[in-house]
């Protein structure tokens, strides 16, 4: 099993390279940073443009540029931006911002999604099931940017209710906030709540639908009946035998759910003024910067594949039948 997981991981390194190359090649062929410079008024002198072209190595073939970029990445150098700043300088801060949003979102999404799905399945065709279904479908059919904007409203009302501006909906921390580590954590939390809710709601809706149907399959199963025939109460049988088995299909979904999360993340970051990776991608496209696009793609590819790998591990941990 360990060998299998190691091999999987090795496969993923290749996949990461392929994904990044595709993004890099696509960006390099369509982006034209020199044209952006030429648009300036007054237009920069030709020598400046040539120097820029030289610096960005636009004359080299794309695979060669990609290889030298990858060569740099191995040493922690992600190339320079169009504005001539090292990409690597900004990477850790932006990655940290995004990870904070994504990780909290995914944990909340999985936990509450599973709970909602299970409750919904056990109370099938009762009011709570209908309400959960309604909630899920409304959330799933609402684009993230609409949802994010809408959520600002109740946050505002909440602030008015308690009389202070506790819930913040712009930025990720109070500018110039100075205090102990703990106080700073509290400060960041105020900014984190609404954006995280935006992301987590979509995830909850997504996971709860699948968990509900997985649980319904298990509810009618023979082994649940055996467990009860053995003398377990219904509740105990449901949790020990039912839920445990119904979690298995969720492990595979985890990998896909993460992709959804990242798409949502890009919009969420823009809406709430978080300068994370998703925001950066938008900036990279706006400034016609292939290096930024490739870096963000690599970051996302790593996240998606790590989550895919984690779902393999999770699957094997949950289901003895696939352990090889």
């Amino acid at each position, binding site marked *: 099993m360990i060998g299998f997981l190691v091999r999987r991981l090795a496969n993923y390194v290749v996949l990461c390279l392929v994904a990044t190359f595709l993004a890099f090649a696509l960006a390099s062929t369509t982006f034209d940073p020199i044209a952006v410079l030429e648009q300036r008024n007054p237009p920069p002198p030709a020598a400046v443009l040539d120097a820029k072209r030289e610096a960005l190595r636009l004359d080299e073939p794309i695979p060669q540029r990609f290889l030298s970029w990858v060569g740099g990445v191995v040493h922690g150098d992600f190339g320079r931006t169009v504005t001539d700043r090292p990409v690597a300088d900004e990477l850790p801060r932006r990655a940290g911002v995004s990870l904070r949003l994504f990780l909290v979102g995914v944990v909340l999404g999985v936990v509450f999604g599973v709970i909602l799905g299970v409750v919904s399945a056990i109370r099938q065709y009762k009011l709570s099931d209908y309400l959960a279904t309604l909630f899920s479908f409304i959330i799933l059919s609402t684009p993230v940017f609409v949802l994010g904007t809408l959520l600002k409203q109740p946050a505002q009302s909440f602030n008015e209710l308690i009389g202070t501006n506790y819930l913040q909906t712009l930025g990720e921390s109070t500018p110039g906030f100075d205090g102990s580590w703990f106080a700073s954590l509290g400060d960041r939390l105020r900014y984190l709540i609404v954006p995280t809710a935006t992301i987590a709601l979509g995830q909850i809706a997504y996971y709860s639908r699948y968990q509900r149907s997985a649980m319904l399959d298990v509810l009618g199963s023979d082994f649940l009946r055996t467990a009860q*025939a053995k003398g377990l109460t219904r509740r105990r049988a449901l949790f020990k035998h039912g839920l445990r088995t119904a979690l298995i299909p969720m492990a595979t979904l985890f990998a896909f759910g993460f992709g959804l999360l990242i798409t949502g993340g890009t919009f969420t970051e823009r809406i709430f003024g978080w300068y994370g990776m998703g925001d950066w991608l938008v900036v990279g496209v706006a400034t016609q910067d292939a290096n930024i696009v490739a870096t963000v793609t690599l970051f996302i590819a790593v996240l998606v594949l790590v989550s895919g790998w984690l779902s393999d591990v999770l699957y094997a941990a949950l289901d003895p*039948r696939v352990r090889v």
Partner: protein
Amino acid sequence: MTAADKPFDGPVLEVDDLRVSFPSEDGRVTAVRGLGYAVSPGEVLGIVGESGSGKSVSSLAVMGLLPDSARVTGSIRFQGRELLGLGDAELSRLRGRRVSMVFQDPLSALTPVYTVGDQIAEALLAHGRGRVSKQQAANRAVELLDLVGIPNARERAKAFPHEFSGGMRQRAVIAIAIANDPDLIIADEPTTALDVTVQAQVLEVLKTAQEVTGAGIVIITHDLGVVAGFADRLMVMYAGRAVETGQVDEVYTRPRMPYTLGLLGSIPRLDAAEKQPLVPIEGQPPSLTDLPPGCPFAPRCPMVVDACLTEEPPLSLVGAVGAGEEHRAACIRSADIAERDPAAAEVFGVATIGEPAIAAVPRAEREVVLSVEDLVKSFPVTKGTVFRRRVGEVRAVDGISFDIRAGETLGLVGESGCGKTTTLMEILGLDKLMGGRISVLGEPTDRLDKARRKAIRRDLQVVFQDPQASLDPRMPISDVLAEPMQVHGFSAARIAERVPALLDLVGLRREHGSRYPAEFSGGQRQRIGIARALALRPRLIVLDEPVSALDVSIQAGVINLLDELKAELGLSYLFVAHDLSVVRHIADRVAVMYLGKIVEIGEVDRVFAAPEHPYTQALLSAIPIPDPAKERVRERIILTGDLPSPADPPTGCRFHTRCFVYAAMPEDRRSVCVDTEPALNGSGDHSSACHFARSREVV
């Protein structure tokens, strides 16, 4: 000690006026309508009935395991204590400790994510919290596994359910059921999903379980053979009610309700040397949503009189054998039946089916319709996903030969995994073979061009096992029947003429042509499948377990139909089945397969009357005969273990690992079984592949 723990000397279980209903789209379905019975300590009650008769629902009601939507009324008393109305917490203290249950499908009855040992131990821990330690429970689980006959129990307890075969899983479920020494075990079709040899093993284990626990047993089954040997008392259910109850011998020899009579006549008998037509019970069980007044069996009953339609007869006494051993039947004509004591065929009026004209011609002079020589088919076993490599092969079929002559039926039998279906698929494929040769009507199939292959398909048709899955649910029946003819370029006029004729031929009404498959019952759907196979006027029909998905009374009708068609149209059949009684009834010759080889082949009466191969003997002796007197004195050959993996078959004679003859022989004599593979040998039309072939009567 709680009140329930006191010794109680009445019946273990008393059910009175039990009614269970479920909501459905067509209104409330009353699955059980006023059922009453009692089980004494140590007694085995067999409940028999067709699907939908309410037998499973009533036992789930006893366990309190029906879904919340079920409405249950009446009374269920366990050792005098009323169970209806108890909450889940109270019932769960009884379940598994005093009353336990064995379910039908062992493959899904165990939770896939916990080890077998843990699941057995859980039954002990659930009732002994605080008194039983985890270690004690685990040790006891190993003892229990050993008791139900799992070899190497300490190791196997750590295995997950998917590492167990079906038979072993059912043993594990039985181990769970007897873990707390219950007073009542309810076994709901405990052997239906298993092969016959494994069924015999599991029934044996259940018997042991009863001896060990002294529990009363309720065994629910549709197999009258299983009840005959196992039960003391019998209750026949129809449409949610008991229609006949009594001592097993009494009911089998003197059935007093036409339904029981029909049911007993509808099963093909392994012990019937002479071919008697089966008794089909026409029609289907009534819908339980809206029952008309009167006896629910009346629409299907040949003895129906006007009075049957006005009032449902109560279960009344028709005879008593001894003290407390009453024979009851719910039929107003039971006195008439008692007076005449007729045979089922007489009551239900079965016409005898003639032999096809060609049967008069000696076999050797008849045309060979299908010949299979040294057929080999293996499947590679591969490893790895990116770089697939071959690590071995499964020889599903390993050099088998047989032929089928005009107007003849060959039954191909064996347990699951023996290669029956692979053989059939190779024949139907009409394609290049891995090894050997198949000829249809004298034409070898491996050199066919496209046009010839299509032409041969007209002569070779197939009927599948699952009548539901083999019909497109969105096609009306007339289209289903017309399709093969369209493919083969029949004119529209000819098709229009032929479709109603086909419906007539299989006993369906012409106006059924416009209906969809969903509107038919299982038996009718199988008739449609047969009609489709007949559309092109084939010479040979391959039947893959055509009746195994049907209830016995319906099965009889389909078997009779196949017999009639053969006589009328001079067809040849290749009949693949695991039910040897059916094969004995329908086949002229039989081939027994074991792990990809034919171990015995020959004329059906000779093989069944004097089987020579130990495997055939075991297979035949494992099949219960629906005759209590015979069944109780029969000596049963119980095979040990499961089918070995076909990827790694035993050397020499493949059967030697499970062979009782081999096991009983001294070391020096039996080495030949391990070293040399026996060839098929025999005289006349009966040969077997065994070094120590000796005929033995087992039926």
